[in-house]
Structures are given as structure tokens and as C-alpha cells.
């Protein structure tokens, strides 16, 4: 710590009387002043003061007479005492090494020797993280790892993690596509995405550890404080809130137009083990009858769907044709291709409809 003070300043009283003009008197006065100055600088004390110059602290353990603290002389005594002790402290400061910084003498203060008490209470021990709990359970010790790792490709020592780390697989300029992978897949993007996922997962776990340490309740189910909630999230939050009652939501009132919740639980519901044998038999016989009748049941819906898709595609093609300035050829091939599409699965209705649609596509 550095201390600035403009000029050597010594506490002393200015002589008020300047009447005498003779040289002798002047000399005497000057001598007197000198003596006074010196006297002012040196202070006699019974016990030496204890100094902590780093804190600019001086401790005076000398005894104080009670008669000095009487009413009349009290202020003067205290002032004199303060002046003396401050003088001693300044003397100590002058003993330190000084340097001149921009026409100012500056002293370099040493380290503080007084131990100051804590400003705030000591931190509470953090609860162990999930990994720490697991490691303690399994008896896994922390292994000291080297800071730098040899990077074979770069032929130099690189840090184990962080900026410009060794063996960074996202920085490969050449990646062989494995045989089992889709040839159109972007391997570089795949690696980058995997890295982002790892980073996000790490961040999530870190925040969860912090939340657990501060005993902040994180919503496992329910609304997270986001700007925009999606419809699914809100619906889920509503259903969770509804079932969070003592009767698990059975007697909760519903809004006038609210539909009763479908079975949104994870558990599948099966028929009871010993149900009604006759009804079971009937169901199975009906199933056999349907299977045996050989009429395709779902094909109607399939045909309708394919028909609708066809119509949509035709509309899109017509729009494109108009936009492209009536290039008929493009429309033709599109129409014919679509006409041949749903023949296989659609059954008669779908196939016929598709074929019929194909013809106007030619124009």
C-alpha cells in the first residue's frame, strides 16, 4: 500500500510573536524554532508503541492518568496525546523506503500484520454433487492428470481440454464415412452436434447440482419460466396440476368445455387375467371372422387419405405451373408420375381416382 503526502509535514505551532527585529533575536528565535521542531518530532513515551504500518495502525499501551481526563484539561490532553502518537506513526512511515512519483514522495507500506476478523460469515460446506456421492460410494479416488497431452497429429504438447486441445475430433479435416452409416449424412455436422449435446448435458447437470445445493425446487413436471410456452407444455402442466390432489384428480371440477383427460399415464392397461371368458371368446371369434372375410377394412381410410394427398399435390403443381409461366412439360411429367403412384396400396377407389387425376395434369 502506498501513501501520498505532499511535503514533509510536522505538527508544530507557528510562533505568533514576530515583534523582535534584531539579528540575535532572530537567530535565537530560529534556534528556538529548530529546537521546537526537533522536539516536536521526537516524542518520549514510557512504553514504545506497537506499529502495524501496513494498516497505518499504532497501539499505545501507556497508562493514562485519570486526573488528565478531568473536565477542563481533557480536550487539550487528548489533543496532545493524539498529536504525539500520530507523530510517532509518521516517524515510522518515514523509515520505510520512499520513491518519487511525479513530484510526490511516496512510501511503500509493508504487509499488514494485524489479522482482521471476517467481514461475512464463513461459507457453509456445499453438499456433494451426484458424481461426488457416487465416487464416495464406489471408493473412486481422484487421479492426478497431467496438464499437457502429446498430440500426435500436431506433433506438440497440447492441453488436455479447452482451447486448442489435443485430439479434438471436431477439428478433423478428413472423416471416413463408416460402412454402416448413411452416405448422405454429414459426418462433420454429426460430430459437432454430438459435442453440443455433450456440452448442454454437462451444463444441465452443473445447474442441477447447484439447484440441489441451494435446495431450489426445480420443476420436474410443470411450467418452466420461459418467455413462450408451447401448447403441449401448458397442457401437460395443467394435467399435472390437476392430478396433484389427494384424490389424484378424481373430484376436480372441469371447465364447461374441457374434455375429460384421455389416459395420459405411462402404464398400459390390460384386460384382467380372469375376465369374462365368454366375452373374450366372442371377441376372438369376431376377429377371426373379420380376418376370414378378406375384405380390406382400412383401405377406405387409406384411399381417402391418398386421394386427399393427390389433390393437394395437384394444387401445388398447378400453382407452380402458373408461377413458372406455364411451362407445360413440367406439369405433364408431374401429373403422370402422380397418377401411377397410389395404385399399389390404395385399392380400387384410390387407384381409380389417381388415374383420373393424372389426365388433366397433362394440360
Amino acid at each position, binding site marked *: 500500500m502506498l501513501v501520498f503526502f505532499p511535503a514533509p509535514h510536522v505538527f508544530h505551532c507557528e510562533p505568533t510573536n514576530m515583534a523582535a527585529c534584531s539579528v540575535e533575536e532572530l537567530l535565537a528565535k530560529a534556534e528556538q524554532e529548530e529546537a521546537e521542531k526537533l522536539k516536536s518530532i521526537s516524542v518520549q513515551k514510557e512504553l514504545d508503541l506497537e506499529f502495524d504500518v501496513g494498516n497505518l495502525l499504532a497501539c499505545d499501551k501507556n497508562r493514562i492518568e485519570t486526573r488528565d481526563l478531568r473536565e477542563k484539561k481533557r480536550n487539550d490532553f487528548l489533543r496532545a496525546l493524539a498529536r504525539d502518537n500520530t507523530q510517532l506513526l509518521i516517524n515510522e512511515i518515514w523509515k520505510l523506503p520512499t520513491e518519487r512519483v511525479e513530484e510526490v514522495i511516496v512510501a511503500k507500506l509493508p504487509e499488514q500484520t494485524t489479522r482482521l476478523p471476517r467481514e461475512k460469515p464463513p461459507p457453509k460446506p456445499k453438499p456433494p454433487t451426484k458424481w461426488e456421492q457416487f465416487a464416495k460410494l464406489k471408493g473412486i479416488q481422484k487421479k492426478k492428470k497431467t496438464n499437457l497431452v502429446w498430440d500426435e497429429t500436431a506433433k506438440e504438447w497440447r492441453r488436455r481440454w479447452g482451447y486448442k486441445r489435443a485430439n479434438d475430433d471436431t477439428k478433423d479435416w478428413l472423416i471416413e464415412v463408416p460402412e454402416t452409416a448413411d452416405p448422405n449424412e454429414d459426418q462433420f455436422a454429426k460430430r459437432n452436434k454430438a459435442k453440443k449435446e455433450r456440452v448442454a448435458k454437462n451444463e444441465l447437470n452443473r445447474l442441477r447440482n447447484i439447484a440441489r445445493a441451494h435446495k431450489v425446487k426445480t420443476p420436474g413436471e410443470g411450467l418452466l419460466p420461459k418467455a413462450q410456452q408451447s401448447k403441449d407444455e401448458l397442457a401437460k402442466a395443467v394435467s399435472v396440476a390437476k392430478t396433484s390432489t389427494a384424490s389424484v384428480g378424481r373430484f376436480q371440477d372441469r371447465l364447461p368445455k374441457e374434455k375429460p383427460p384421455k389416459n395420459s399415464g405411462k402404464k398400459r392397461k*390390460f*384386460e*384382467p*387375467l*380372469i*375376465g369374462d*371368458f365368454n366375452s*373374450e*371368446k366372442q371377441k*376372438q*371369434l369376431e*376377429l*377371426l371372422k373379420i*380376418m*376370414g372375410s378378406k375384405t380390406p377394412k382400412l383401405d377406405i381410410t387409406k384411399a381417402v387419405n391418398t386421394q386427399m394427398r393427390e389433390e393437394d399435390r395437384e394444387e401445388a403443381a398447378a400453382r407452380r405451373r402458373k408461377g413458372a409461366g406455364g411451362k407445360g412439360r413440367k406439369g405433364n411429367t408431374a401429373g403422370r408420375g402422380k397418377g401411377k403412384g397410389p395404385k399399389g396400396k390404395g385399392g380400387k377407389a384410390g387407384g381409380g381416382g389417381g388415374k383420373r387425376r393424372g389426365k388433366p395434369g397433362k394440360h
Partner: protein
Amino acid sequence: MRPLTEEETKTMFEKLSKYIGENIKLLVDRPDGTYCFRLHQDRVYYMSEKILKLTTNFSRDKLISVGTCFGKFTKTKKFRLHITALDFLAPYAKGFGVAAKSTQECRRVDPMSIVVFHQADVGEFIRSEDTLT
């Protein structure tokens, strides 16, 4: 143990119909008692209701098998028919044959070679006189 769901029943019946055709209803609806299919750890068992009622006394991990095992459902929900079902399928089988070649050979062989022998019993020639050429 639980009864089969609609999809599981459908898959199983489709498989059985390949072997016994229409006669599955004779398995479902039997004159001599109510029999049922139950699923236990992905295996389908065929048993009478009397046995089923006795089975309720066993816990899941202690129960190994009930009645006859018809087959099992694989991880991808396909139905695999087991040899233990033969006794029930045999009376209603669409046809019987003996494999002429092993499975591996059958795959590699040309289209015109013989893969199945139909071993007739003594009276078959007389029984199906009209249908045989």
C-alpha cells in the same frame, strides 16, 4: 400373466391361419371346455380355465410355464410358433409334408427342385380318388 391385446391376438391368429386355416375357431371355441390364451413373459400359453384359476396362486417370477406353449413374441412383436403347439395344430392342419431338403439347402436350390414330400397314409389314395388325377 395377462390376456393378449387385440394386436397380439391378430398377429398370432394370422400365423396360425397359415397352418390350420379356418380351424382356429375350433381352438378358440371348444365343446369340451373353455380354453384361453395367456401371455407370460412374451410367451403365449394355451390352457383351460381350470388351470388358469390355479395359476393365479403363483407369483410372476416363480411361474415358469402353464398349459402348452404355443409360441412367443419376439422383441419386435413378431410371433414365432413353437413345436410344442404341434399337438393342437395337427388335427386341423391344412397339409402334412416332410422336408426333402434342409433349410439352408432349400434357400440355395433352383426353382424346379423338390423340397417337400407328401407322405400319404394307406387309405389316402382311395379317399381322394376323385381329386387325384
